[in-house]
């Protein structure tokens, strides 16, 4: 068994033994469903589309996902178990990758549970399954980038609460950055740059059912970049 798999199993089990994972699942499932059926009036609009269900996910993940990532390193440091983990023969990059996969495991499990929403409305209209699959791929890609950012913030935070607030603030800012050009009256390269930077604008393509490799690459680069920064933060902490 590779060290990554061993650490992933421990981390995933740890998520299942702690409250934040259940809070994440409960709020994610209930708020997203309430948004679709109550706030957006799914049945009133009479559209065979779950676009409004997925449109709220960037903001929802920005608030909920940090609850999963905040403990990654800040909690290990607080309880002293980081000393145990960091003196095992595992590279920092492997530890970071394993923790990331564990968070994705929890998110993936919750997304499987969330399938109950589309499955419950399928009989009310002719839904495009391809679009639905694309929307779920996009959600996982978005969650991966958010989780990587969360782990980086946790690696640089002293406390889990600090990690939560820092991650949430950054994710909310990133989610809203594509609206800045309209608010500030910007145009041209600056406006396009801000729109390109925002995860929400890339997620939008998935929500429309468009599986664009550039959007996938964007989320992959964001994920790899923040995981790299998290590993670097751990190494820097040991060598500073």
């Amino acid at each position, binding site marked *: *068994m590779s*060290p990554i*798999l*061993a*650490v992933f*199993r*421990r981390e995933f*089990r*740890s998520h299942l*033994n*702690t409250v934040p994972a259940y809070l994440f699942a409960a709020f994610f499932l209930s708020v997203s469903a309430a948004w679709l059926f109550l706030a957006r009036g799914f049945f009133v609009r009479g559209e065979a589309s779950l676009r409004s269900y997925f449109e709220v996910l960037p903001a929802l993940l920005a608030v909920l996902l940090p609850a999963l990532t905040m403990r990654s390193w800040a909690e290990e440091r607080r*309880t*002293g*178990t*980081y*000393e*145990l983990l*960091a*003196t*095992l*023969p*595992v*590279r920092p990059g492997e530890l970071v990758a394993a923790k990331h996969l564990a968070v994705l495991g929890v998110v993936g499990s919750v997304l499987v549970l969330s399938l109950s929403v589309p499955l419950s409305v399928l009989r009310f209209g002719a839904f495009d399954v391809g679009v639905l699959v694309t929307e779920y791929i996009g959600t996982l890609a978005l969650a991966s980038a958010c989780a990587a950012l969360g782990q980086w913030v946790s690696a640089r935070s002293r406390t889990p609460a600090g990690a939560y607030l820092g991650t949430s603030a950054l994710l909310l800012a990133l989610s809203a950055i594509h609206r800045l050009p309209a608010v500030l009256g910007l145009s041209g390269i600056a406006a396009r740059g801000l729109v390109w930077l925002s995860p929400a604008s890339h997620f939008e393509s998935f929500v429309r059912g468009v599986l664009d490799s550039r959007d996938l690459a964007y989320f992959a680069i964001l994920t790899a970049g923040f995981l790299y920064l998290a590993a670097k933060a751990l190494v820097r902490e*040991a*060598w500073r």
Partner: protein
Amino acid sequence: MIEVRDLRKSYGSFEAVRGVSFDAGPGGIVGLLGPNGAGKSTILRILAGFLGPGSGTVRVAGIDAAEDPRGLKRNVGYLPETAPLYPDMTAEEHLAFAAEVRGIRGAAKSRAVREAAERAGAAEALPIAAERLSRGWRQRVGLALALMGDPPVLILDEPTAGLDPNQIRQTRDLIRDLGRDRTVLLSTHILAEAEALCPEVFILNRGLLAGRGRPDRIGDAFEGGDRLEAVVKAPGIRDLMRALLGLKSGVPEGDPTAEGPGAWRLRLSCAPGTADAAAEAVSDWAASEGFKLLELRRERVPMEEVFARLTGEDPA
């Protein structure tokens, strides 16, 4: 097995370790002594791969800590001072996790878990969640974790801190046993522990190596490093005082004290490294003066006094 050369480590502007060098050969127990803040834990954390050396060289089993931190960790079992454990995991799950990370799997994993737990005296704790373990049991589980994978070097940071007297005795027996087939480097500020366990000690003070050697000989370098105590039978105190003027080696510390009818106790201090010769001279002197030598005992400078002198602390 352990090679440290001109090791330095700073936390911001505070220099915790200021150019420390020492070696520890294969097999045996080496003690790292020093008051709080002397740099003991920092050095142990560097040797365990938790911290990187600021400058200087650290090698364990021939592996450079800066070049191959992962290789170094494979050769080191480390017990931090607080034996940190995940509260929701049992001792067995901790050991199985450590085994998996070290690449031990299948039947070998079960065997390694059982052997490490038994060797550390933690077998009874295997099914218990860490949050329910007492300090003593946590320490044993931590020791079992350090033993996982049978590393040739064990680094133990204050291994008996917070244990009750029985647990301390058991832990010391275990460390003695472990030191037979691997190198054990332990830190402690309990001097009796260092004397009881370590054939060699290094004394640290404010990030510097202040002394090194066998615990019973480390005070030899001091002025008046050894003392002799002799009980002689002399006709009277005046004869004894007169005869003392002819004693060639050893300087009397104060006046003789009466020890019984016609018997007097003398305390003599010796120049560094001359205790054996001084003992011989006292024996010859007593014979030449016609005194009976009832007792001659060599008394080393107590470890507490050595520690206090080297670290600049008041022994009281």
